[in-house]
């Protein structure tokens, strides 16, 4: 059970706040059919989308909370005090000049370098529930890549997106996917045409800005045959006094021979419930890779999955979780094998600091009629203090005499000898500890693009501050 944090942390750090009164659209607090209709109306959506939302809303009402296995902290979410939709009523901007100043300020506070800001073409920076800045580089357009928000995606390119929308993750998958399906706004819809290999990663920054305002972005990425794409999302959130809910749905579709790499760095503030459903479908010889790093939030429940649907498909989840005081990182991976010769790999590393708790929850399924399927799962946990906690709950179902899986998990603490060694060479204890933790997760951090791994190392240093002594 997570206690509300009463620890002294610098809450001003990353405190981006704007008066909410200027929002042009505000659906009020609480969730009802009217709110769903209102959101759909504001977005001028087709009837089928409204039907989809309403159906999802009724599923949400019926579904129980998953508390028979999950943390009881979920019961502290009060769905009636959350704002489900809020936007400035602006169209996604086309050029840098059109981006409102306050959003530019946020970028400033985030410390995005001047050079990079100009280079933010291809970046979908989400401001609350609408994409505030959306500009595609010309060569992306030339290649036929579509990179839009869900509203535009479903309105302008239904022939592409409608087919897969809500198919990888049906609304009824769980309570929070139903919630998202009912009130989603913002997010990225991406289509990469056959054979197009994107050299540069596409990026999106999400942030939450109004109090008690849950963010429900919806992402759908389709990589057509032989296409390749890397997508990155990074999160920062402003400070709030009461708990905030973030519940996204991310669907990836990798068609024959396509490759998708989805990178997340999650650093919500310590009062955010981050309950995200992420799943990919991998067709023949396709490859999907989730690289997932969870540092922030009060409670994260996120188990990226891959349904390996085509022969020789490959799925991978690399996950790093850091749980500090008052945090519970409940992360993991799901690998559903549904074709011959599919393989999957899960490597999860977690660090529990102070009173933090990290959990790994995994699922691997290989039915009996399949041949030559393989899974490898490794989870390593590091405990820093005596109050830290770590749990591992994998679930493995294997049938058939021609498949193999292996699962390994280990729990260890920081080696005193190594800390002593580093201290001997002039590092203080905190620096030594930080170096140790960085070393523990290093082989995964290397998988991140360069700027992210630098950022991550800084974040780990920051988290380790004051964790010893």
């Amino acid at each position, binding site marked *: 059970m997570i206690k509300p944090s009463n620890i002294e942390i610098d809450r001003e750090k990353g405190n981006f706040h704007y008066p909410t009164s200027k929002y042009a659209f505000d659906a009020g607090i609480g969730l009802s059919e009217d709110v769903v209709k209102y959101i759909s109306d504001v977005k001028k959506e087709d009837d089928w989308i409204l039907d989809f939302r309403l159906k999802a809303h009724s599923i949400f009402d019926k579904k129980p909370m998953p508390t028979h296995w999950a943390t009881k902290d979920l019961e502290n979410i009060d769905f009636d005090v959350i704002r489900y939709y809020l936007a400035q009523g602006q169209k996604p901007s086309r050029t840098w000049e059109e981006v409102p100043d306050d959003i530019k300020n946020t970028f400033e506070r985030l410390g995005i370098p001047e050079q990079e800001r100009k280079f933010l073409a291809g970046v979908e920076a989400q401001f609350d529930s609408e994409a505030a800045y959306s500009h595609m580089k010309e060569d992306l357009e030339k290649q036929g890549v579509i990179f839009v928000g869900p509203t535009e995606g479903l309105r302008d390119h239904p022939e592409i997106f409608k087919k897969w929308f809500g198919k990888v993750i049906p609304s009824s998958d769980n309570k929070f996917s139903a919630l998202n399906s009912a009130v989603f706004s913002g997010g990225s819809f991406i289509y990469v045409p056959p054979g197009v290999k994107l050299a540069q990663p596409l990026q999106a920054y999400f942030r939450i800005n109004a109090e008690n305002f849950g963010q429900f972005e919806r992402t759908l990425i389709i990589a057509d045959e032989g296409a390749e794409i890397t997508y990155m999302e990074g999160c920062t959130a402003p400070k709030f006094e009461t708990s905030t809910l973030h519940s996204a749905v991310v669907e990836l579709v990798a068609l024959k021979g396509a490759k998708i790499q989805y990178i997340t760095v999650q650093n919500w503030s310590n009062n955010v419930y981050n309950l995200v459903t992420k799943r990919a479908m991998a067709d023949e010889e396709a490859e999907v890779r989730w690289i997932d790093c969870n540092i922030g939030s009060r409670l994260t429940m996120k188990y990226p999955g891959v349904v390996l649907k085509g022969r020789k498909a490959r799925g991978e989840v690399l996950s790093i979780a850091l749980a500090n005081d008052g945090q519970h990182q409940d992360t993991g991976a799901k690998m559903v094998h549904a074709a011959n010769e599919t393989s999957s790999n899960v490597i999860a590393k977690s660090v529990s600091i102070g009173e933090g708790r990290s959990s790994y929850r995994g699922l691997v399924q290989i039915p009996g009629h399949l041949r030559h399927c393989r899974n490898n799962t490794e989870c390593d946990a590091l405990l820093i203090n005596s109050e830290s906690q770590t749990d591992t709950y994998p679930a493995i179902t*294997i049938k058939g005499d021609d498949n*193999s*899986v292996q699962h*390994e998990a280990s729990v260890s603490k920081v080696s005193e000898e190594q800390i002593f060694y580093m201290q001997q060479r002039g590092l203080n204890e905190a620096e030594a500890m930080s170096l140790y933790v960085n070393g523990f997760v290093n082989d995964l951090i290397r998988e991140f693009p360069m700027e992210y791994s630098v950022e991550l190392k800084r974040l780990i240093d920051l988290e380790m501050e004051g964790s010893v002594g």
Partner: protein
Amino acid sequence: MVSTPSHSKHMDSQFLTPDFFESFSAKRSWEPGWLADFRKDSWDKFLSLPIKKNKDERWRFSPRARLGFSNFDQLAESPKPSILNGQKIEGILFDTLDQTILNAPSSLLDLPNMQGPNLGADDTFLLGCCFSELGVFLKTEKGIIEKKPLKHCHFAPKNNQSLFQTNIISLEPFSELTIIEIFESEVMDTGGTLSNLSHIKLAEGAKLNRILIQKVNQLSTFNHLESIQLGRNSEFTNISLQLGGAQSRSESKGVIAGEGASFNNFSLSLGNGEQLFDQRTVQHHISPHGKSNLLYKNALLDESKSIFSGLIKVDPIAQNTDAYQTNRNLLLSANAEADSLPGLEILANEVKCSHGATTSKIDNQELFYLLSRGIHRNVAEKLIVLGFFDEIIREAGTQETIELLRDEISHHFN
């Protein structure tokens, strides 16, 4: 009588009705009052069990319908377990439970305080507390060291009957003992359900080796719930061989309650036909410097299925714990299924804990090697399974017990 939904669906079984319980306790009115109270209390708790929830993590992957009591209509009063030796050893009290109730009821006074493993089969546990007449009671005196294994056999009932037993094994400080427990069937052509509760308690410095062989016939159901308390510097090594039963549910909880205690829990299961092995385990460390090592190996032929769910729990106080948990499954047929739920909950930081689970098929090269030497496939598989099990069999101590285990496994293949 109040009828609650939890037992109304069992109404076919005459022993699950309030009337039956009334007549059962009337028949046993000669028992001491505290024991009657304990039976009544357990019965009331059984009646007030909540209605089965569809989603109970403790039953994940388990086909619950196969493990209920509704198929068994009568309570069995026999067969009694047999104690093959050891009844007359100096310093060891070893008798059947019914005799102990009759002759030395005061030695059972602690029974109402004995907890079950509490890993899901609440109904089995409460009914066991309520209806156990048979079982064994074993208690050593302080410092008794007995080299010769003590053996006792238990029998599954016939004709859809249900038998509940309680075994109490308690070792006083610094005593050492080896026991062999056999579970088999009374008859081969019909089967009932045998539900066995075991309470094992080791005081300071005690050592217990236990070999358990379960070979009830394949028409029977076997429930085995055991909880083990390990005192300071005590050692318990358990080797159980599970061969029989149409379906079986075994729950095993070891509590490392004293500093420096050591708990080895090994299990081998060999499944064929449509056998089901549902295994739930916990290693709970509540004291520092404890060691536990669990290894469950399942070899599955035909359409057999195994579920392994294990948990290592380390309390904040249990620093310097070494705890390991391993589940290895060998699938020998395309329709065999192995589910594995190895879990860890670690709340102390000065620990070495790991778990591993692997599921794989027979190595084709090994098989080819054997086949190319003219060995029949069935025999080749047997040899490979024996090899797969060998690391546990070798732990069985004397050559005699090792041979006993090997023979039982080989026999199962023929």
